């Protein structure tokens, strides 16, 4: 046995070693390619982002175009993985040489970034340059601002919309939902589709996702927390158990009971499953981020229908808030570097870049002039329903309830909202599920305020 092994080593040691050396060599060469060094004479602006897949390709193109457009700065994009973990990385690396000059951070980290005092509000540069922000979507801007100060610039932005399989509706002779449907209208459509297809097609689903529940509150002009959802002062009280949340969950409960609703759970797997089912003609309606339009229109002959986020019966739709992420400027880098970061932010907001961004990713163009570009006109010609999310965004007038919830600890809040939703989806009592969430959220808020000395 030992002899055999020794002989084996003798024969194969050199080739194995050679393979190792080659692998290491490749890894090293690749590694040094990505090293963060700028071209001579340029100020490096390290840019942390969380864009993967097609969005990463599109973002790299914007960066490339920016670097070619001038010779003063060099933006160096670095992918940092998922949003949640990136927040902690950004905060923990602040003040070290490894920290970024410019970073992308997601919607619900806004209050955390604001309170960390680790960033320079972009308002400073807006004022210095007299930069006109009026072309940029107001409801997106208001999400990342506090008391008139723009903290960060919205970048990749989406809104939840209602998707429906228009081909299936036609096939079974069911009237499709209107442009801005009410809860009962969606229920009617889902039920008819389920019955007329002889239960072959499930009517609808709504992912167990705190964001969607918060948007239901926003669309009904209801606050989740006091002090204007945190926009007028530091929040001290959370009130998830309110009539609007109850109405939303009762609506879902009605559909679960009549059998037309299908539950795919929460998280990325739920999104994958609902899209797979939708494309396989097994699901008629679902509510999800507008960023999925691309996936829902490629490789399928089905006609995609899109409506606004549904609103409770008898309540005028207030317009939903946005989701996605914004671009922030770190304050631990020299003024020149911060200026470079701002120049890049401005570059991302141009009508042309925003239009190309929407076409490539499904995120919404924030610049209102993007709608006039050929890129988007061609897109709408090909997929007429792709126009709807942009209209929903443009029609939303910002107020405290649809400008996001400006509170620290939103990640945990989302978790607790989701647990409440899961309880209800699995047949639990709505009132007690919401009370449980409220108790835990308020306890957490109290600890947060105590730890932060507020």
């Amino acid at each position, binding site marked *: 046995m030992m002899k055999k092994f020794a002989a084996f080593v003798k024969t194969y040691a050199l080739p194995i070693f050679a393979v190792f050396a080659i692998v290491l060599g490749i890894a090293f060469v690749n590694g040094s390619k990505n090293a963060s060094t700028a071209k001579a004479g340029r100020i490096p602006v390290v840019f942390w982002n969380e864009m993967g897949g097609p969005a990463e390709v599109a973002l790299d193109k914007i960066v490339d175009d920016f670097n070619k457009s001038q010779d003063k700065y060099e933006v160096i994009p670095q992918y940092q993985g998922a949003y949640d973990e990136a927040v902690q990385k950004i905060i923990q690396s602040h003040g070290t040489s490894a920290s970024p000059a410019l970073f992308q951070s997601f919607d619900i980290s806004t209050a955390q970034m604001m309170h960390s005092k680790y960033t320079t509000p972009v308002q400073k540069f807006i004022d210095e340059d007299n930069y006109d922000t009026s072309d940029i979507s107001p409801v997106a801007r208001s999400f990342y601002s506090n008391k008139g100060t723009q903290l960060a610039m919205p970048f990749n932005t989406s809104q939840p919309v209602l998707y429906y399989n228009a081909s299936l509706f036609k096939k079974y002779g069911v009237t499709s939902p209107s442009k801005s449907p009410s809860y009962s209208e969606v229920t009617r459509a889902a039920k008819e589709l389920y019955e007329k297809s002889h239960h072959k097609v499930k009517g609808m689903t709504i992912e167990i996702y705190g964001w969607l529940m918060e948007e239901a509150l926003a669309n009904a002009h209801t606050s989740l927390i006091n002090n204007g959802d945190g926009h007028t002062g530091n929040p001290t009280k959370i009130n998830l158990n309110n009539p609007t949340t109850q109405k939303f969950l009762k609506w879902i409960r009605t559909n679960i009971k009549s059998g037309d609703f299908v539950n795919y759970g929460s998280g990325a797997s739920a999104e994958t499953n609902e899209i797979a089912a939708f494309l396989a003609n097994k699901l008629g309606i679902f509510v999800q981020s507008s960023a999925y339009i691309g996936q829902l229109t490629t490789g399928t002959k089905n006609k995609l229908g899109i409506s606004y986020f549904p609103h409770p019966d008898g309540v005028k739709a207030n317009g939903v808030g946005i989701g996605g992420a914004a671009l922030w400027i770190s304050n631990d880098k020299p003024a020149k570097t911060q200026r470079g970061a701002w120049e890049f932010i401005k570059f991302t907001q141009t009508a042309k870049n925003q239009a190309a961004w929407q076409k490539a990713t499904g995120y919404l163009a924030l610049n209102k002039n993007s709608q006039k570009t050929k890129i988007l006109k061609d897109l709408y010609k090909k997929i007429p329903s792709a126009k709807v999310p942009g209209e929903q965004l443009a029609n939303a007038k910002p107020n405290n309830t649809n400008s996001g919830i400006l509170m620290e600890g939103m990640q945990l809040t989302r978790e607790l909202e989701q647990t409440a939703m899961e309880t209800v989806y*699995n047949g639990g009592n709505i009132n007690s599920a919401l009370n449980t969430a409220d108790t*835990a959220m308020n306890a957490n808020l109290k600890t947060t305020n105590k730890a932060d000395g507020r």
Partner: protein
Amino acid sequence: MLKSPAQSTPTTPLSVEKTKSEIADQEAKFTLNAKDKYFAWAFLGPSLLILGVFIFYPMVKTLYLSLFLTNTVGKTTVFVGLSNYINLLTSADYLSSLGVTLFYVFAVTIITIALGLVLANLASKRLPGIGIFRTLFSATMGVSVSVAAIFWLFIFNPSTGFLSLASTWLHLPQIPWLTDPTAAMWAVIVTTVWMNLGFTFLILLGAMTSVPTTLYEAANIEGASSRFQFFHITIPSISPTLFFVSIITLIESFKSFGLIDLMTKGGPTNATNMLVYRIYKDAFYSGNYAQASAESIILTIIIALFTLLQFKVLEKRVNY
């Protein structure tokens, strides 16, 4: 009656005793002079330094963090003593996580060992073509956590998954595998067992094939049934290996993270929110480092207790 190997070779324990006392004698004579001490530190120093920086310092820091509240940027602000621990141990949420973890760990360990034994027993028979089965049974060893999770997610898919299609054909009720709290727990257990099985099978098979054939021959002459042989020869003979595999599986299951993250994210209604996943979420999702630190300390104590218990209880029953 059959004798166990230890009883049949009474000289073994004596010889061990002897070597032990020899070592003790040598140690007594062995004293360190100044130069030796210098060398001792020089050789131990690097490993002590590495242990200190990467093990002891983080442990002490974790303990320290667990006694404070942490602010937005993760810095300690208010000293709260043991209140993080008290809050955790009185929160129904955390206690349910603890219960869920224990259920998962024991279910996984018991099922993995049981199935591993059955498969290893089948594959230990010398039959033509058995190599194919041995390869098949141990095949899951080469599957990474993410691949396993995605593979099973496809099977559990409520609309297009294999299980859903199969139950439609057979006119059985549909089980919402990943969205019903009880079913989700079993979905995760099944996937974990499936993943662990290859390794467990291989180790147990190795142990079984090294059991002396003379024992089975003697048993055959005495007319013992194959079932009797399995419980009275195979199991006692491979008990050291069983002990090893059960410890490894138990501790690995406590640390289970990847599958949970990819399959359920701790849901639905926290039904699969295991202790390790909870720590990760509290620290790196919520930025609540103080509470996550307290949870880490509690988990460390639990794992240490189980390891101790297993060594104390199982060691006595192990037949070396």
